[in-house]
């Protein structure tokens, strides 16, 4: 048996953050993870994160993972991989399977950061090869560099379903539809919009009737459902697909905490069976903490802060720091966490039907039902304004805690007001220099630079473009609407790819000026 001051289970965002904070205070920390590689789900997250600077906003998930690992390493944190924790007891003894042996460890404190597992739903054919979890799709394409399928149907329109659909497009797959049983898109509108403008249709109030195929998936039939989730006859639609991907929510992986005798509760707002914890993650068993998704499903950004809190708490618990120091640090973390838990999608608002933004503007119903803001709805949002010359058009229409756009503009053109969740707007006296930093920094890819009238009957639209092959200057094709339909002819004026844009290329296309506020994506003409 070996003793550690802190044993952390799970080397994902919260576990690593906890390890870093504890190690900073001088504690001897070990982190066990059952996977071959550390980082949890961060290395599958290739999109830019939301939030503010404190929350690693506009940095891609896998980069955050690399940073955390480096920091943990520099602080002497021991991360043991392929180490499956199979038992946890109330006296903080931990049994770990490493190789072909069971090892025993004793922790003075234990932080459980095991994350979550994917929920699944059943339908005829759900066990066929080709029906996979959204996590599996991410693992295949983002870790192992292989397409999960060629033609894919996504079940679930929460952030996972939307983000993974976009990643599938980036991996060169075709997403035939995003289907959700609920009547409204569950995830961020901006995530939905960037998929919709690529031409992916949304089917809300729909579910899978059956997956077809003998030995593997060859097709899928969906049908519409009523308010009581009962299928409506005659609404069936068939798609030829080789893959069906499920993104229907996550459940906390809290079994170890239950095993240790921690008081548990079934809390639907937190995603299921969770330990009862205080605001810093301490469970009912003294010295055992929970951080991240295991104590309630949220984003990786909040998991990291919860991890830091647990790290600081164990340092005080073991006498490495005074209560005053702990409280001062916790206060800062609490503030960060609180700012993330604001807005329409905050945990406290889960399940609530929100009709208006904080500014009192009607939410786009088309966005909630079809995944994109309709042309006649877009003008009412504060980021959408008109003026001569190139100017930013910010199609950010829901209150989410995010503000990189405000910091990105070197001319300070963009503001989110005094609250991180407010909708950004362009300052009236702003002088846009067409640098594109706002377009590249928007994690939701919702900012465009538009010159509505170039004087020759055309307009230019600069949009974020994260696909290959990258179009070239002079390429001819089509301007796609927010819905992803061809609306006009378009020519590529320029494609900018600089390091500061971090792989978000800025594609500028010339379109007839009537389409300045309609064309939002470029599709190259097929030769």
């Amino acid at each position: 048996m070996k003793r550690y001051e802190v044993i952390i289970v799970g080397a994902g965002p919260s576990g690593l953050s906890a390890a870093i904070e504890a190690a900073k205070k001088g504690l001897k920390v070990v982190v066990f993870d059952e996977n071959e590689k550390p980082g949890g789900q961060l290395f599958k997250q290739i999109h830019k994160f939301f939030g503010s600077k404190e929350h690693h906003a506009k940095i891609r998930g896998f980069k955050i993972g690399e940073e955390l690992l480096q920091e943990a390493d520099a602080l002497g944190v021991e991360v043991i991989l392929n180490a499956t924790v199979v038992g946890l007891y109330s006296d903080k003894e931990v049994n770990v399977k490493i190789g072909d042996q069971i090892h025993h460890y004793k922790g003075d404190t234990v932080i459980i950061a095991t994350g979550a597992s994917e929920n699944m739903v059943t339908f005829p054919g759900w066990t066929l090869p080709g029906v996979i979890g959204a996590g599996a799709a991410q693992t295949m394409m983002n870790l192992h560099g292989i397409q999960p399928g060629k033609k894919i149907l996504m079940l679930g329109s929460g952030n996972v379903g939307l983000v993974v659909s976009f990643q599938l497009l980036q991996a060169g797959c075709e997403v035939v539809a995003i289907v959700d049983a609920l009547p409204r898109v569950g995830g961020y509108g901006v995530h939905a919009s960037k998929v919709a403008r690529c031409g992916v249709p949304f089917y809300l109030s729909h579910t899978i009737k059956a997956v077809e195929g003998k030995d593997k998936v060859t097709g899928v039939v969906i049908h519409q459902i009523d308010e009581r989730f009962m299928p409506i006859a005659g609404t069936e639609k068939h798609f030829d697909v080789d893959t069906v991907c499920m993104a229907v929510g996550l459940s906390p992986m809290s079994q170890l905490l239950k095993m240790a005798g921690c008081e548990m509760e079934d809390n639907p707002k937190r995603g299921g069976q969770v330990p009862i914890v205080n605001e810093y993650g301490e469970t009912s068993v003294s010295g055992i903490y929970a951080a991240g998704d295991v104590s309630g499903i949220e984003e990786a950004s909040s998991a990291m802060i919860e991890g830091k809190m647990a790290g600081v708490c164990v340092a005080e618990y073991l006498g490495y720091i005074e209560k005053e120091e702990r409280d001062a640090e916790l206060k800062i973390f609490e503030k960060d966490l609180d700012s993330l838990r604001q807005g329409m999608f905050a945990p406290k608002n889960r399940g609530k039907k929100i009709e208006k933004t904080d500014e009192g503007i009607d939410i786009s119903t088309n966005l909630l039902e079809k995944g994109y803001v309709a042309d006649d709805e877009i003008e009412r949002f504060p980021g959408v304004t008109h003026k001569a010359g190139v100017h930013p058009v910010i199609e950010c229409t829901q209150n989410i805690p995010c503000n990189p756009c405000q910091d990105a503009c070197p001319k300070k053109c963009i503001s989110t007001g005094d609250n991180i969740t407010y909708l950004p707007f362009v300052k009236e006296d702003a002088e846009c220099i067409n640098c594109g930093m706002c377009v590249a920094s928007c994690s939701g890819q919702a900012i465009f630079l538009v010159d509505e009238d170039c004087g020759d009957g055309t307009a230019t639209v600069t949009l974020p473009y994260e696909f290959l092959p990258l179009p070239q200057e002079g390429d001819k094709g089509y301007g796609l609407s927010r819905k992803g339909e061809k609306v006009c002819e378009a020519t590529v004026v320029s494609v900018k790819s600089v390091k500061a844009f971090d792989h978000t290329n800025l594609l500028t296309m010339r379109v007839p000026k009537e389409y300045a506020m309609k064309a939002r994506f470029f599709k190259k003409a097929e030769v």
Partner: protein
Amino acid sequence: MNTVIDRSKDIGEFIPQPDDDMLICRCEEITKGEIRKAVHDGMWTLTEIRRYLRTGMGLCQGQTCSRLVKGIVARELGVSPAELEPATSRSPMRPVEMKVFGKEEA
């Protein structure tokens, strides 16, 4: 949590449903109908269901089906899933070969 289930409650007869052949536990290949029948056979807790049918006792240890089984049992009993005590958690949390489980470090 820890809601004591009133065993005198009448949950009615087992009535077949069209999707009773839907596979729920992928590892042990247990269907929805089998789970529903088990409830009518008197298996009202998730631990009882697990021992009776082996749902969640296969290779994956209930990773996928726990939540599904819970929902089916709750609906059959006419309670909310949150009222059902989850099945016992005990070591080993993940499938471990017996030869490994028995081979502890010195």
